């Protein structure tokens, strides 16, 4: 681990530094993933640009459309924000199971996204919440829908020199509910074996009017279960439908076997966890068909 650290004084300064030092450069915020990867030798950069001084990126603002969460907000900042917890329970549920408190106090939401781990908890929750990522680069800022953002393990649409400035969350629609579930091998300090984020809204007739299902650790990136979403949309969620969805969702993911779990187990878990998440969001007992 050997690099030069450059402290960015402002967002434009950070971007200018990045251009000057390219390509052997990387942004660092909390460093909770990056330092480990650098020390293991998995990654190596001659230059790091320290964003931690950009206090303006560590604000959570409520807007008419929803929330704007600065990229430097930590997992703990999210967990302590009553408005976010009220409007998006899934986000708090995800932020609260990232590492220990030490990591939650340092690791940032921008870092969690930019790191683009297929198992990232907050990234999966945000995928389920239709977040929009505000990326800042030389040409100014642009908005990227989170569904498009992740392109592969550790890879995203961020262009060289671009950094995440903020995350936008739309205001939840009336009657909308959401949750985040995670399975690991321990009850804390876990990288997800499988995670599921669900957001759901029923219409007046009790049919599913809107649904997002996001999955972690069952593919090369955080995934949307588009097939299952389509299957459920417009239907009344009775027990038979939910059971069908729990099977169908296995086709929406491509889990792999690793030291944490087998692909087969992950597939089974995804179904069971979707069922749990649906039950949770529908609150009441599922009516029998």
């Amino acid at each position: 681990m050997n690099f030069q650290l450059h402290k960015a004084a402002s967002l434009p300064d950070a971007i200018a530094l990045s251009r000057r030092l390219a390509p052997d450069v990387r942004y660092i915020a909390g460093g909770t993933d990056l330092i480990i990867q650098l020390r293991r030798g998995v990654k190596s950069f001659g230059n790091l640009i320290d964003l931690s001084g950009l206090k303006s990126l560590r604000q959570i603002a409520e807007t008419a459309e929803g929330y704007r969460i600065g990229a430097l907000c930590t997992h703990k900042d999210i967990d302590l924000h009553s408005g976010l917890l009220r409007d998006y329970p899934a986000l708090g549920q995800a932020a609260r199971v990232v590492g220990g408190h030490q990591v939650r106090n340092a690791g940032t939401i921008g870092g969690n996204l930019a790191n683009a781990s297929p198992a990232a908890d907050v990234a999966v929750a945000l995928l389920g919440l239709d977040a929009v990522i505000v990326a800042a680069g030389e040409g100014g800022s642009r908005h990227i829908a989170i569904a498009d953002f992740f392109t592969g393990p550790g890879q995203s649409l961020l262009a060289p020199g671009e950094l995440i400035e903020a995350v936008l969350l739309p205001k939840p629609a009336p009657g909308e509910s959401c949750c985040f579930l995670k399975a690991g091998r321990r009850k804390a300090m876990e990288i997800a074996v499988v995670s599921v984020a669900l957001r759901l809204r029923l219409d007046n007739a009790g049919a599913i009017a809107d649904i997002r299902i996001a999955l972690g650790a069952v593919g090369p990136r955080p995934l949307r279960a588009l097939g299952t979403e389509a299957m459920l949309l417009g239907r009344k969620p009775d027990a038979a439908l939910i059971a069908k969805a729990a099977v169908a969702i296995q086709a929406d993911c491509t889990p792999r076997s690793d030291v944490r779990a087998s692909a087969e187990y992950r597939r089974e878990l995804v179904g069971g966890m979707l069922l749990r998440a649906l039950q949770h969001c529908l609150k009441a007992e599922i009516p029998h068909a």
Partner: protein
Amino acid sequence: MNMHPHRNQVNVGTRHKRIDALGKVTGATIYASDFSLPGMLHGRILRSEHAHAEIVALDLSVAEAMPGVRAVVTAKTMAFHRYGNLVKDFQVFAEGRVSYIGQAIAAVAADTPEIAEAAMQAIRVEYRPLPAVFDPIVAMQPDAPVLHPDLLQYKASPLADRAGNRSGRTTITVGDVEAGFRQSYRVYEHRFRTPPIHAGYTEPRVAVAQWDAAGIGTVWCNTQLLFDTQAALAEIFGVNVTQIRVIVPAIGGGFGGKLRIGMEHYALALARVAKRPVRVFSTSHEELSAALFRYGSVIEVKTGVDREGRILAKQARAIIDTGACSGSGPLVASTATLILAGPYRIPNLLLEGLAIYTNNHPGGSMRAPSGPMPNFAIESQMDIIAADLGIDPLEFRLRNIIHEGDLSATGQVMTGVGLEECLLKAADAIGWDRKNPENNRGKGLAIGAWMTSRGSSGAYLKLSADGRFTLMVGVVELGTGALTGVAQILADELSVDVADISVVSADSHITPYDFGSQGSRTMATVANAARLAAANLLGKMRPLAAKALGVPEAELQMRGKGFVAGEKSISFAALAAQAQMSAGGLIAEGTYIADPIAYDASRVRNHFSPGWPSPSFHAHAVDLQVDPMSGEITIKDYVVAQDVGYAINPSNLEGQIEGGVVQGIGQAISEELVQVEGRVLNANLTDYKMPTIMDVPPIRVVLVEHPSATGPYGAKGVGEPSCIEPPAAIANAVASATGKRILDLPVTAEKIARA
């Protein structure tokens, strides 16, 4: 040593606060990893990437030429002798051939850890792979690759019965098992597997070494065994033992994983070449891929019972995968035979312990090294049999457990047997009679016995002119509180406060010989040596006091930190001052070893531990819930009833038991070093799953006291055994909750869900 409580018992038996706590809560305690010397270099070790290969070429030139590199050491640098505690099959550096991934090939010392790392990476090794074997069952076949062709030429313990890939074989034979099986109503046969486990100490192994002008090599390190380390290093470097000095400033956990040399030999070798002090600190990756793990094993058990649920015969074998060097394997396999027997009355036994070489990384002696693997097997099978016979598992055990005066499998007469009381108390505390209140909820039991290891302890004791006593002992305070217990005992023996006792430990050139901090023996054995030293010192103090007071010795009484005779008195401080002026000062020593335990030699072959001094007995009971969707286990309650003989310090004993249980829970449900073809795939703490505080409930401890005949005040060894029973207790509870029986540890959520 007599078991009767001392007449002046003030501190013994109390929850006296630890004598080492203040430094630990303030950060002031200097651990081995905090130790440094001026001009100290930093060492790194190049380790094999191949499980079995010839080293065709080894190119050090780039590393040696790097600025800041001060030494590069390989097998060719100097004469290193083979070492090993039972069979001399370890090499410091590979010589022409590597036989496991993680085997040291070279070591580098440099000005900074970063330069050392870069130099290590710059060493080029060319390998030619050889056929390898990773499963001990396969390694036992006649056509398996042979790891040590010259095995019979190695120096070894005469009990290490070697042949082919076998470094040890122990048997116990009682009665006639075949006849027992013929008489049986039913016979059950199962095979269990357990993976290697890391001891999980929080302070990695570390050594700082320096050679002085007189040719004495000193290492500051975190070994559990000062004198074993001293002897091993002397052997490796071909010097006298007193040319090696071992000092342990303080140690951050051991649990058996720091019994044998880890970094010390590399640091000494590098320091000798560099002529500078060298520090070698084990990285997290090295710890989890190249440490002395608890052995993986295969356990086969065949048991015959009658209709009433009495065990008539048991044939079992424990196959210990030692990895490429035998380490503690022959001893672990040997002791495993007694765990296979279990604390049960069984008239016919044929038990076998085998230590088998494979191309996996060598293991060692984690806490109760022979305990959890066979216990998991036999106690799981007890529940399988009970269920099949329709007998309650508690009742089935009660029908078969040993009682006072029964013989062990080796023919030892068992005394101080508190097993039934433990079993009943644990069952009562967990609410055994109450049905499982919810679906997927279950309770499980497991019982066992363990020993208090023998081995010598020495103690020096001196009285200073401030009236305070200093005890010098050659053990390491592992964190068990053993030396607090010793100080409590000594304070009562000398009628002073615990604060009047200072304990100096763990410097091989100053403190007396000791077998070391292992085998649940430290408190019991060191205390007995210290008590003898106190008796000897009092034997010197009394005549001096009688003379000073002008009274007969018989009239002296110890009181108020001095001697009193009627109206006359002299304080210990004044006595020490007088003795320093006129009688050569006050110093005494004591040495102790437990008497050997009688057993029936006709029952055993090549047994390392046939007689168990001060055996301890334990019953574990757990109440847990299983999520039927994910298989995830939530432990609701956990109770241990343990026969500790006598609780010198109940708090510290509870702490030992609580900690051991949590290690056992880790082994039961989450911990395993996942090895594929000799490579550990989860060599980091992200994927090596030690229990967090969220994974365990508060552990409830019931102390049962059936005194030992030899331990101080009746105390038995307590440190190790609480990690033995959790895997079986939990597997049994999972079976009770779900009907699913898992025979391979760990009992993970995935295995339960997919069973």
